[in-house]
């Protein structure tokens, strides 16, 4: 650590290409420890690509990208990642608790010794797995086959898997997708709680801003090759959003002073 107040993620004029096509360019931003930031924008602007770039799985073609004080990809063991995914097939023969455990030591070679031979180390792993399952409130169904859990339950277990190694950064790709409204609110609250309690920076890709708006520190809008970042109050205005999406969008205020975005093109299925 060279600077005292290190940014968890720092992009300076960064750009990336997929198949020779520039996905985004000139993206500058810095995410601080314990910050909850949502990445929003129309389909195909490279929201997931940005997460993959932070993991070092997608190379940047210009500018700088520093993650946890090192070039992207170097410190992935300190990053929890939840990729965009479909649900597990009901016949998948693995329990939620096994999946969380794989997050702890699934990348180690060799067989894990039975607990009574390994002593303290195995106990420590077991304790952390139980603790993180408790934290996400999944204790009731963690021992069921993962495919037999509901979408919301699977999502909580996968968040537990991403959290089990006490990461400094959490990358969540559409964790609220395919959840009903109650579960969307529950999972959003959970992410915010973890973010505060463990001082984890969270970068969350979302389709629809409304369910997470009350919990966010800042939002990053990706659109038309560029990016705008700021607090929801700064960025979520009718002018900025209409400009970014190139279509009229309204921002309403409810009685508690909360924001509601109306006319977001993705919500109506017309892209761009």
């Amino acid at each position, binding site marked *: 650590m060279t600077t005292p107040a290190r940014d968890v993620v720092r992009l300076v004029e960064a750009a990336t290409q997929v198949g020779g096509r520039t996905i985004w360019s000139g993206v500058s931003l810095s995410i601080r420890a314990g910050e909850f930031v949502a990445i929003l924008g129309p389909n195909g602007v490279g929201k997931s690509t940005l997460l993959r770039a932070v*993991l070092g*799985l997608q190379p940047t073609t210009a500018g700088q990208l520093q993650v946890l004080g090192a070039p992207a990809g170097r410190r*992935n*063991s300190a*990053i929890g*990642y*939840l*990729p965009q*995914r479909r649900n*597990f*097939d009901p*016949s*998948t*023969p*693995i*329990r939620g608790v*096994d*999946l969380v455990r*794989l*997050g702890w*030591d*699934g*990348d*180690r*070679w*060799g*067989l*894990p010794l039975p607990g009574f031979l390994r002593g303290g180390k195995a106990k420590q792993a077991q304790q952390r797995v139980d603790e993180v399952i408790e934290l996400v409130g999944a204790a009731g169904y963690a021992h*069921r*086959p*993962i495919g037999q859990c509901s979408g919301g339950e699977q999502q909580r277990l996968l968040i537990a*898997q*991403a959290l089990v190694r006490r990461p400094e950064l959490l990358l969540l790709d559409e964790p609220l997708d395919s959840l009903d409204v109650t579960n969307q609110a529950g999972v959003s609250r959970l992410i915010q709680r973890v973010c505060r309690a463990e001082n984890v920076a969270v970068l969350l890709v979302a389709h629809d801003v409304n369910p997470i708006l009350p919990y966010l520190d800042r939002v990053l809008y990706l659109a038309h090759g560029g990016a705008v970042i700021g607090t929801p109050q700064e960025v979520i205005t009718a002018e900025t959003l209409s400009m970014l999406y190139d279509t009229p969008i309204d921002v309403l205020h409810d009685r508690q002073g909360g924001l509601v975005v109306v006319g977001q093109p993705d919500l109506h299925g017309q892209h761009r």
Partner: protein
Amino acid sequence: MTSHLSWNLVYDYRELLSFHFMLNAMRAGTIVAVVSGVAGYFMVLRRQAFAGHTLSVVGFPGAAGAFWLGANAAFGFYGFCVLAALIFATLPGAGRSAGRVGNQEPAVIGTVQGLALASGFLFLNLSHGFAGELNDLLFGVIIGVTDGQVIALLVSGVVCLLVLAAVARPLLFTSVDADVAAARGLHPRLLSAIYLVVLGVSVAATSQITGSLLVFALLVAPAATAVRLTARPALGVLLSVLIALAVTWLGEGIAFFSPYPIGFWVTTFAFLAFLLATGYHWAAARVRVPAAVTA
């Protein structure tokens, strides 16, 4: 090989093992069952049963080709199975679950399987092979296992098990959760390639004893039975091995006292175990649902 079954099982068992060919059949069957039980568990987990089946079929033209050229059939089995495993590992989509939409793996593998069977038949024709050879290559020669073959089988079996033990955790991780595993620095394609080659070697070793068609019964049925009984990975591997051992010992034992071939008995018991487990799975799901509602 018809012997009379008495009601004294200890006596029957002693009589069975007093024949050296039966002792070797039991030894070979035990090694094959353990390796197939472990390798098969990952095959079922990764939904690569079709690839595994094709690997076992590919051994047939390999052995038939070796027979035609006057070489040892073992070279044919190992050469073709490992080559096919390497080809499968380079297919686009390798390293991902085979069930994914858009994955071309099953189509390509199916095409390879057709060609393999046809070339095997051609090689046997070219070498003026008789129905006897065809029968042995497809359905095995469990009764004629030599001491040397048992040792060769043991060596390749131990190598396969050691490699699988070394990659077990990362292989499990990439099999159920390829994206997260890749983000953690694992290489799903590399692990898939290692696994397919191990599968190819164990299939080649096994086929020499059981023949190309019966290897599959031991590879898929015990593992498919195990995953219906438990969702714990370690217990699943253990159950898969125990079921493979049970059906092999039972099949070989009964075949000794009956006029029907070993392969038939082993396959039938494996199928029965699968049916019972499927029934249990079905019944357990029916019982669990009302319980969950009231909870």
